[in-house]
């Protein structure tokens, strides 16, 4: 379902029974998405004693246009390859937004009591299971019953004169199927499909008149795979040998779910119906309109939040003995604090990647004041945030929400933080840790986090991997397990010196502000942010076939001075977004 992600395998299939050897760190870091796009690769020496390992590979190259076999890819605008477009199901958020946009506010909490905080980087989607299908059935029944019970909604969705004859009512049903139903399916119903819809209407109408016929149709349509999945069949219009144009309706859906996370609005639908999504200029016009809409402005901040796992912060547990101040109220405030920063970054700070990583602007309220050593009483008592400049700050990298997530329950974690930087900013994927790892060092009074971690340098089985994470993460040591600033760790003065290796901006640094400045100068990091955006916006991992789309998008991003606000428009213009590969011939 999801694209193959990496080719880390050193050897052919190791038989199960010989797999008992410790699966140690190979020291090899592959770029996620594996075999493709601008892969930085770091090769450490597996199991070598204490050495950081030789570093090699093409780290730092932005777009090498190098395919799996290392052959250069030529990007030919006349023969684009849009890559894979797996059939995806609406996420729960998209489903609820769609229902709301189509029918207005309908209470579905009995079916979906809580909105799940699934990652927006939904690179793999499980097939439906029995519980999902039951929920779809319940929700469809609830929505349909609510729609037909509400005369004003019915007047919008499926109007029909009161007291219409059976024949006239059937005509109304027919008009519904040719009219509003187009919005439900995000495509018109083909003539060949009308009969089976009308047959269902007839079955319902026989059991309760026009209203019941419409109710049954709605129940079925809202459980139809055409509604629940983002169906993209493409058109017969070829664009070179490996791409076809999407239909106008399909493109409208891509724009709408891509930029607004919901179903196309009436304007988009009208444009699709009129064939006004055919040209690049048409699409650009819609794009500008959609980005100016309040919903369009939320996409980049949502991307940034999702990137640092902001939706999951509420579920992060801390040890109450170590961090008694860790409360739901503080967690909520941290989320707002991060969102305030993102909003300000995009509105007032130029929205660049550099600002994201080096900004000195911090937002503080009375709940979060203590984290930065500010005085809570000097801040508004209503909990509102005030911005100020903090010389220690480094934008996203010093957000408490980020630092608390990338930490353990009772202490900081240079490992998590180093891993995050390497994987999320340099797109270098670390191998999984081995099974049967030795016990972690216990926290002893007077021993700093840095001192405990030196064990990784001694134990050969740990060194190869940890040399790739710990030296970066130790630069964050001025921040404890909930992101509070500190200068003393367990009785020892904090040493926040760190080192970046295996990147295009290698060097030593002290503290996160210097690290942020290093990353901000990295061409690899700029390219990696583009890759992350691709994954987020396309809902899938990049593949070799996406090389040209990525290159095009990253060129646009680079030309803007790495302005994050240009990302939505940049991806919309790529082959990956505009086209799809022709569907293989079905067996039927």
């Amino acid at each position: 379902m999801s694209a193959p992600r990496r080719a880390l395998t050193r050897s052919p299939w190791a038989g199960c029974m010989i797999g008992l050897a410790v699966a140690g760190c190979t020291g090899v870091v592959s770029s996620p998405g594996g075999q493709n796009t601008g892969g930085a690769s770091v090769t450490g020496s597996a199991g070598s004693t204490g050495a950081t390992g030789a570093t090699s590979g093409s780290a730092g190259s932005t777009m090498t246009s190098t395919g799996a076999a290392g052959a250069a890819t030529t990007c030919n605008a006349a023969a684009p390859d849009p890559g894979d477009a797996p059939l995806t199901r609406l996420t729960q958020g998209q489903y609820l937004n769609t229902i709301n946009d189509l029918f207005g506010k309908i209470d579905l909490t009995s079916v979906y009591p809580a909105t799940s905080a699934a990652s927006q980087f939904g690179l793999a989607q499980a097939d439906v299971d029995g519980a999902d299908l039951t929920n779809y059935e319940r929700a469809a029944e609830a929505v349909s019953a609510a729609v037909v019970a509400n005369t004003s909604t019915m007047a919008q969705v499926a109007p029909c004169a009161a007291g219409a004859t059976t024949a006239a009512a059937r005509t109304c049903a027919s008009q519904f199927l040719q009219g509003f139903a187009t919005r439900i399916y995000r495509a018109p119903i083909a003539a060949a499909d009308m009969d089976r819809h009308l047959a269902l209407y007839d079955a319902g109408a026989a059991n309760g008149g026009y209203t019941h016929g419409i109710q049954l149709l709605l129940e079925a349509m809202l459980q139809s795979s055409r509604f629940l999945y983002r169906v993209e069949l493409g058109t017969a219009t070829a664009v070179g040998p490996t791409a076809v144009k999407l239909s106008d309706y399909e493109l409208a859906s891509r724009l709408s779910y891509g930029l607004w996370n919901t179903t196309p609005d009436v304007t988009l639908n009208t444009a699709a119906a009129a064939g006004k999504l055919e040209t690049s200029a048409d699409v650009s016009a819609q794009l500008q309109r959609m980005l100016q809409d309040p919903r369009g402005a939320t996409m980049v901040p949502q991307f940034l939040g999702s990137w640092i796992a902001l939706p999951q912060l509420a579920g992060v547990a801390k040890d109450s003995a170590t961090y008694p101040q860790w409360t739901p109220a503080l967690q909520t405030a941290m989320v707002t604090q991060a969102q305030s920063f993102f909003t300000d970054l995009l509105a007032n700070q130029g929205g660049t990647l550099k600002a994201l990583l080096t900004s000195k602007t911090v937002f503080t309220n009375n709940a979060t004041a203590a984290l930065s050593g500010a005085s809570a009483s000097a801040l508004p008592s209503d909990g509102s945030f005030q911005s100020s400049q903090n010389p220690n700050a480094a934008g996203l990298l010093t957000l408490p929400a980020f630092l608390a997530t990338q930490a353990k329950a009772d202490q900081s974690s240079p490992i998590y933080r180093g891993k995050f930087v390497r994987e999320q900013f340099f797109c270098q994927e670390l191998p999984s840790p081995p099974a049967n790892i030795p016990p972690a060092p216990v926290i002893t009074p007077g021993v700093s986090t840095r001192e405990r971690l030196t064990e990784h340098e001694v134990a050969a089985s740990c060194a190869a991997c940890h040399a790739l994470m710990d030296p970066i993460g130790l630069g964050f040591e001025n921040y404890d397990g909930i992101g509070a600033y500190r200068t003393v760790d367990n009785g020892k003065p904090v040493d926040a010196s760190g080192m970046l290796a295996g990147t295009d901006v290698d060097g030593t640094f002290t503290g996160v502000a210097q690290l942020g400045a290093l990353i901000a100068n990295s061409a690899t990091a700029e390219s990696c942010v583009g890759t992350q955006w691709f994954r987020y916006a396309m809902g899938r991992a990049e593949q070799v076939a996406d090389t040209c789309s990525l290159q095009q998008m990253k060129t646009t991003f680079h030309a803007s001075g790495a302005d994050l606000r240009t990302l939505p428009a940049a991806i919309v213009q790529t082959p990956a977004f505009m086209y799809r590969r022709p569907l293989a011939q079905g067996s039927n």
Partner: protein
Amino acid sequence: MSDTDSRTKFTRRRLLGGLGAMTVALTAPIWKPATSFGAAAKPAKRFIGVFSANGTIGSAFFPNTTAADSPLTLGPECRILAPLAAYKSQMLVLHGVDMTSTIGANKPGGPHMKGPGAMLTGGSLLPGPFTGSEGPAGYADRISLDQVIANTQKTQFPSLEFGVRMQGQEPLKYISYRGASMPNAAVDDPWQIFSRIFANAGMSQAQLQKTIADRKSVLDFLKDDITRLESRFTGADRARLDAHLTGIQDIETQLATGAATCTAPTLPARTDPEDMDSFPMMASLQINLMTLALTCGMTNVATFMFANADSWQWYPWIGVNEEHHATSHADDTDMAAQEALTQINIWTAQQITTMLDKLAAVTDSDGSTMLDNSLLLWGNELGKGNTHTYQNIPWMLAGGGGGQFRMGRFLQYPSVPHNNMLLSIQNAFGIPGTTFGDPTCCTGPLSNLT
């Protein structure tokens, strides 16, 4: 399985005039067995897979003996299993049965991700994007034992998946898989489960008949609809739609066989199932619903997860005021942590005792108890938390399983793959086969069981 009681009931219901019989409600008590209407019907065999997280404390779980095969005595050293002592003659405890299928340099997934995916599949995780627990990895690569058994059932629900406080990243939350990358989510909301298994509770017969007729029309439409769409696709997309179609067909089966044969219990007013402190209450509600669904013949297969793998649940009601996962990483010399982990496992054993109590209280059609005809497998994602070992998983089998295994023993093996155990259970359910899960990990049925 054609002579199981649920099948017989279905026939009887049709004799009674189809839909009309669907509203027949048994009077209290709820725990009235799923009686068969045919006199000589053999009781169904039920399978329950129970998962708990973060490993165990071996010295408090396994009996202290070196014998390879000894009667299960549950002496004072077996503190964790002590609550189950009343059932020791119907239990097997297995030592040296390892989740080998998770281990290997090329098997994706962090130390807490692999266990749940392997526990009932005898496989490993596929490559994939999930990084929440030191990934990356995807979902499990094959079907799980509960689903192999579920595929042979004719019940209203092929299986039901229960959980308590299922949180965190994929794939920590799944032990049940219909196939590669096809997890069955463990539902951790008792009210949601209730509305699923007692969907028609409270309807009048006229309402019910109309609802059933409507759903039938809609399902027919959907089957046709998805078949048409499916024909346009190939490969993974087609498989995805096919999985959807299969699910629709299952719902149709539920509609045909679904019956309010039991009185719906009354649930307390809804509270947040994700609330840390309500863990015991949710566990209790879920155990009630699971045993009710089994008793009523709604399903013969269930899985039950006490939280997700890597669980960070706290257990303040038994004095454990710290996070389960973090505690499980403490050194062996940290006696406070060892005690906390032991207490968590004792509490889980008490919950399983409740499950067995409820099964033992039900008389099946031939006079045996439902426990005699059930096999409950309690496993764990790990053997031991602080080493992340997949060796010496604390396996416990309970119930008669229809008399297939010689129960009441503690068996020690010299590091055998757990695939062998899964194969033995499959065979005990009358499903032939000579290998289970990853065939390179299976060396045949587990010896000395039958």
